[in-house]
C-alpha cells in the first residue's frame, strides 16, 4: 500500500511540476534511517546529501531492524565493497541477511523504502547487483547515478518491480531529488 501511495504522489509531482521544484508535496517523511547495503562509502555520501537536502536522518551503516521503529522512511544505499565489509567485520551472507531483515521490517511497518546507488559504474559488480536485486522488490523509489545504469540494469529492475526511478548525472544532484522527495 505504501508503495502505491508513494508512486501516486510521485506521479502527481511529475504531472504538476518538475521534481526539482521546491515546494512539491512530500512523498515521504523524515526522519530517515540510512544504511548501507554492501558497506561501500556511498552510504556515507548519502548521509551528507541528506544533510544538504535538510532531511532529518539517522545514519548507521550496520544497523539492525530495531532502529526502524523510530524512522518514517528507510534509505538503503547499495554498493558492495570487500574492503568495507572487511573493515566492518561482516561477511557477504550476513550483510544480505541484515538487509533482508531490515526490508521485511520496513514492509511490516509500512515504512517507504528508497533504494540509492550513487557511486556509478565503478560500484557495479556481481555482489552489488545481487544486493540491488534484493532491495528493489521492496523499494518504492530509487535514485541512481546515470553511469551506473548504462546497461539499463536499474531501469529494468524498476520496471519489473514498479519502482519509481530517478537517475542523476552526478552524485551531488541526488540532494535535489531527496529535497523534493521529502518536500524540503
Amino acid at each position, binding site marked *: 500500500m505504501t508503495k502505491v501511495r508513494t508512486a501516486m504522489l510521485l506521479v502527481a509531482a511529475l504531472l504538476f511540476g518538475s521534481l526539482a521544484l521546491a515546494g512539491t508535496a512530500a512523498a515521504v517523511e523524515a526522519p530517515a534511517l540510512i544504511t548501507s547495503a554492501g558497506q*561501500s*562509502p556511498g552510504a*556515507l*555520501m548519502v548521509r*551528507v*546529501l541528506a544533510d*544538504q537536502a535538510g532531511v532529518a536522518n539517522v545514519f548507521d551503516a550496520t544497523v539492525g531492524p530495531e532502529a526502524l521503529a523510530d524512522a518514517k522512511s528507510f534509505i538503503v544505499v547499495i554498493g558492495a565493497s570487500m*574492503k568495507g565489509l572487511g573493515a566492518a567485520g561482516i561477511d557477504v551472507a550476513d550483510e544480505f541477511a541484515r538487509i533482508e531483515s531490515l526490508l521485511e521490517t520496513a514492509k511490516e511497518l509500512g515504512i517507504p523504502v528508497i533504494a540509492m546507488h550513487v*557511486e*556509478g559504474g*565503478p560500484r557495479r559488480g556481481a555482489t552489488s547487483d545481487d544486493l540491488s536485486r534484493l532491495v528493489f522488490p521492496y523499494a518504492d523509489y530509487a535514485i541512481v547515478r546515470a553511469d551506473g545504469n548504462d546497461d539499463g540494469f536499474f531501469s529494468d529492475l524498476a520496471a519489473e518491480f514498479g519502482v519509481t526511478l530517478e537517475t542523476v548525472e*552526478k*552524485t*551531488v544532484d541526488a540532494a535535489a531529488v531527496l529535497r523534493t522527495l521529502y518536500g524540503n
Partner: protein
Amino acid sequence: MNLRTPLRMSLVALVIAALLAVPALALELETAQSVRSTQGVVTAAHPLAAAAGAEILAKGGNAVDAAIATAYALAVVEPHASNLGGEGYMVISLADGTEVAIDYRSRAPLHVNVHTPAETGWPPHGILTTLIPGMVKGTELALQKYGTMTLAEVLEPAIRLAEEGFPMGDLLASQIADAYESFLLEYPEAGKVFLDNMLIPEPGTIFRNPDLAHAMRLIAEHGSDVFYFGEIADAIEQATEGWVDKASLAAYRAYERDVVRGTYRGYEIVTAPPIVSGVRVVETLNILELFDLAQYGHPNHPTAAHIMAEALKITQADYNAYVWDPNFYRVPVEGLTSKLYARERAALISLDEAKRYEAGDPYAISPAGEVAFTPATVEESPSTTHVSVLDKDGNAVALTQTISSFWGSRIVVPGYGFLLSNHFRQFPGFEVDDPFRPDYAAPLKTTRTVLAPTILKKDGEVRLVIGSPGAARIPQTVVQTIVSIVDFGMDLETAIRTPKFHVSGLTLNLEGGWPAESAEALAALGHRVNTNYGELDLFFGGLNIIAVEDDGTMIGVGSFRRDGGASAPLVVEEAVVH
C-alpha cells in the same frame, strides 16, 4: 592515452628566431604509456607527472632537474602515494661518471625516545605517526649539487598543475573513496582538499589544489628554508600540535651517500645504499648469477621462479638482520654485496625444495660491525611511487618517494595542501630484555623501508633505469624484471607485463597470468602457492622504467599496474612565417 602537449616558446625566443630568419625549433612532448625518444624520457606513475619532467627536459634541463619536477608533480596528481610531507631516495648517474645517492628519508623528531612508540600506541594515522619530512630538503640538495635549473624553474609545471587542475582519474578517485570516511569525519583538512563538496569526486572532475600551489610557490621563491624554518615550518608544528616541532625541522638534514655497486652478467648495477634495499637487489642478483636461468626459457618457468624465490628469501633474511640506519650503525654493505658471500649463500638453495633461511654472516667479509638483529615482524611501506629519468646526454635518475601508507598520516597542513607521512608507526616498542635493538626510535633516526631505485649500465653507458612502488614487493619486482630483460632477453614492455611473484616465507603469491602448470610445479616444491590475484595487479608494484637500445634509442614505459605514463620531448622543425 596519448597527449601531445605544445610547449609554449617564449615571446623573446620567437622574436629572436624570426629576426634570424632560420627555422625555429618548436618543442612538443609525446606522452603515452610507452614512448621512444632520443631526446630523453621520463616515466612516472601518472602521465601528467611524466610530462612535467619531460617539459623540463624540453626546456634544456638535465635528468636531475626533470626528476625533481616530476617528483613535485606527483604530489599534485598522485597525492596519496607521495607528497611534500614525505620522503624518498634518489640514485643519480651523470654522464661525467658521477654516481651518487641522495637520502631524504624522513626522520624522528628530536623529542622522541625508545619508549615513545609504545606511548603513542601505534595509531595507523594521525599526528603521532608523522616524522620530519625529507622531500623538500632532499630535492633541493640534489638540485643544487647536480641540477642545472632553479627550484622556481623545476617547480613551475607542478605549480601550474595544482593551480589549473587536471581531470581526476579512476585510481585517485578510488583511493579517495577508500579514505572517504576518515576524510569526512576525522581529517577535515584532508576532506577540504580532496573531497568535492564533502563527496567523493567523480572521475573526470577537475581537481585543483591551490593551497599546495601556494606552498610550492613559497618553496620556489625561498627554497627549503621556508619549509624547515619559515612559515611552513610554523604550520607543520601547528598541524602536528608540536609533534614535528620547529627545532626538529631545523635539525633535519638530507644526505649524499655512496651508491651501492654490483655487477650482473656484464651489467654494472648502481643502486641505493642502506637503509633502503638496493643492497638486497645486488645480493640477490649475485646469487642468481650463479645459476643458468636462461636455460629455462621464461621467468615463469617453475625452476627459474623457484631459484629466484629462494634467492630472494635468503636476501630477505640478510636484509632483515643487517640493514639499518647507517647514521646509527655500520651496515656490512661490502659483505652483503660480495660475490664470495653470494656463493656461500647460493649453496643453500635446493632445486628440489622450498626452504626457510636464516641470516648469514656478512661480517666475515665486511669490516667488523656491531649490528645483527632480526625483528619478529617487519612492517614496511605499502604505498610509494617511482620516477625514472634519462636525458639526451646520458644523465639518469632513479627516484622513489613515499608517505608510507596511501594518504600517509592523513594530516594535511592547513593552508599548504600537502600530506605528512605516517612512518613513525614502524618504530617498535622498547623491550627491557633487549635494550639495544637497531630499530628502536631515537631522535633523527629513520625507519627501514624497501625502496630500490636502481640504474643498470653497460660499458659505462646507462641501459636501464628502474624502480617500483609496492612495499615488500619492490625489490622482488625489480629483480624479476632485471632477470626478464637480462637473462631472458625480453623487451621492456614484455618484461613489465610478465606476471610477477612475491615470496614471503613459504608463501608464494602469484600474480594473475601464471601458467597453471608452473603454479602446480611450484606447489610440488613446497611453496604455499596463492593465486588469488588479478592480472597486472597493483599489489605487485608499479614499475616505471627506461631502457636504452643498442642504437641509443630510449624506451620509456609507465606502469601498467597503475596509471603510469612516459613522456619525452620532441623536436620538430617548422618554418618561421615573417
